[in-house]
């Protein structure tokens, strides 16, 4: 007896989930931790975003992150401009050190994404070094795809997750 059977695996309909914006993430230390009272203060409050030497200012006014194209670790023009601002700020605020966290979107395997996130973090660090920031003030780490800030499975979210975030440590108000 000869038996012919067709097995069809996994052709479930694709259901596209809506993209939700998660405000904060619990993962990378400083990632997404925006100050609560960033605007509306006329006076200079140490540690708030109106204090140009504050971590909050660095995150919001300078911009603490750059994003990358799919599978890429080369900096975009926008990314370089952001890093120019970071370099200026880091040279002005010499008390701070930084850990640059590299991240990938979920469209990749775990180990490869750690290596890719590492490349992205290093691309940001190398650029900052080229602008005069001492390499001794910076470390890099990669979280691969483990710490997304956006959780939808669409390019709108992936584009924000493919990032290198400069997380400050030390400093007078840090």
């Amino acid at each position, binding site marked *: 007896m000869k038996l012919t059977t067709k097995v069809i695996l996994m052709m479930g309909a694709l259901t596209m989930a809506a*993209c939700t914006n998660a405000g904060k993430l619990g993962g990378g230390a400083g990632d997404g931790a925006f100050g609560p009272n960033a605007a509306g203060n006329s006076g200079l409050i140490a540690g708030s975003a109106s204090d140009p030497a504050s971590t909050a200012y660095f995150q919001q006014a300078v911009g603490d992150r750059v994003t990358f194209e799919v599978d890429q670790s080369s900096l975009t023009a926008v990314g370089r401009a952001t890093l120019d601002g970071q370099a200026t700020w880091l040279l002005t605020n010499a008390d701070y050190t930084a850990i640059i966290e590299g991240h990938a979107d*979920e469209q990749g395997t775990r180990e490869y994404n750690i290596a890719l996130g590492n490349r992205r973090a290093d691309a940001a660090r190398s650029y900052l070094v080229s602008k005069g920031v001492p390499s001794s003030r910076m470390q890099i780490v990669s*979280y691969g795809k483990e710490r997304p800030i956006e959780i939808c499975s669409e390019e709108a979210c992936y584009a924000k997750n493919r990032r290198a975030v400069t997380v400050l440590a030390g400093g007078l108000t840090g």
Partner: protein
Amino acid sequence: MMVRIFTTLMALMMTATFSLAQQGPLRIEITEGVIEPLPFATPNFVAENGSSAEMGVQLTRVVAADLQNTGLFREIPATAYISSVTDFGSAIQYPDWKAINAQALVTGAVNVSGNNLTVKFRLYDIFSGAELGNGLQFQGTTEGWRRMAHKVADAVYSRITGESGYFDSRVVFVSETGPKNKRQKRLAVMDYDGAGVKYLTDSRSLVLAPRFSPTGDRVLYTSYETGFPRIYVLDVGSVQRRLLESGEGSISFAPRFSPNGQTVVYSQATGSNTDIYTMDVASGRSTRLTSAPSIETAPSYSPDGNNIVFESDRSGAQQLYIMSANGGEAKRISFGQGRYGTPVWSPRGDLVAFTKQSKGRFHIGVMRVDGSEERLLTASFLDEGPTWSPNGRVIMFHRETQGAGGRSTLYSVDITGRNLRPVRTPEGGSDPSWSPLQK
């Protein structure tokens, strides 16, 4: 004789061949081979004293589930039985079992005495009207009753298929809770069927990709305990862990043991570049095996320890390569459409399992060591991280669902592409690693 059961099963396991559709959704067409599972009966194991009855029932259920879950066997419900087995030593009424189309009959007896448990079993080939192999007896503690059931099932599987079993084995994996952006991960170990989950770490630090040692007593894994990914080795019994690799100014991940357990192969990133290294566990001395500016990661040894399969994007995208365990020139083995990662050498040495990304889908697949005969076994939004059963017949992996509510679950699938099934765990699961058969 035993020939009949044996040949039926061998036909079932060996002659299935597949052709993969090159376009559209993944489709596996089985054009040859018997797919009708072999019917078997397992009357409840006979209780040899009053305190053994419940244990007898539980043990029998585990044996039956082991066999049934392979997809190669089909249990005949007890309601169909004509004969009952009330005495382990009495003669088998072959016509009664033949009449309900049982081809294999497993009988057993259980004796609970305090904490001691004795389990006996016999296997019969109904159509030949003869016992298949000799009766066997296992002794242990009542605490280890599941393992004894798995040992019975392994013996049955092995006698009928001619291959070693895989039921008396464990899986170490990452247990996951929480949404994608707040996922908590901790290491856990369980029996291969999801029973007896025990947590090995807490979820304060991100942990990834645990890998069993060849003897199943230690686990390598990556933890962010220091703030940076580093490789740890953990003793499963004592749950004591130690940092194995502490290269300053770099990150280390993707560790695996060599087949003799004395060497660890892993990835280390220095600057932007990730390469493959080995470390002698006893001395801590490391050796760099690759030096290309590309990403080299996810290394896995051949069972003889002579070669390493790994992934590299040196060609522009992730592909699989094999090199000597001492490094040197690597030979590319994957050439299909898409990207190939997470290669794992099969325990038999003939196949490599991998994760493939193609056209926005992820697949678990296998190919021969020379890259030929690629077969995709699964397809979904995100399938990843294959690990081999001890006998090389089954692959476990994890599947993450799409979207904001995405969750990760362990699955297993035969290397024929059949019998895809979830492995139930208390929480979400990822990064499984299958132990060898326990001693």
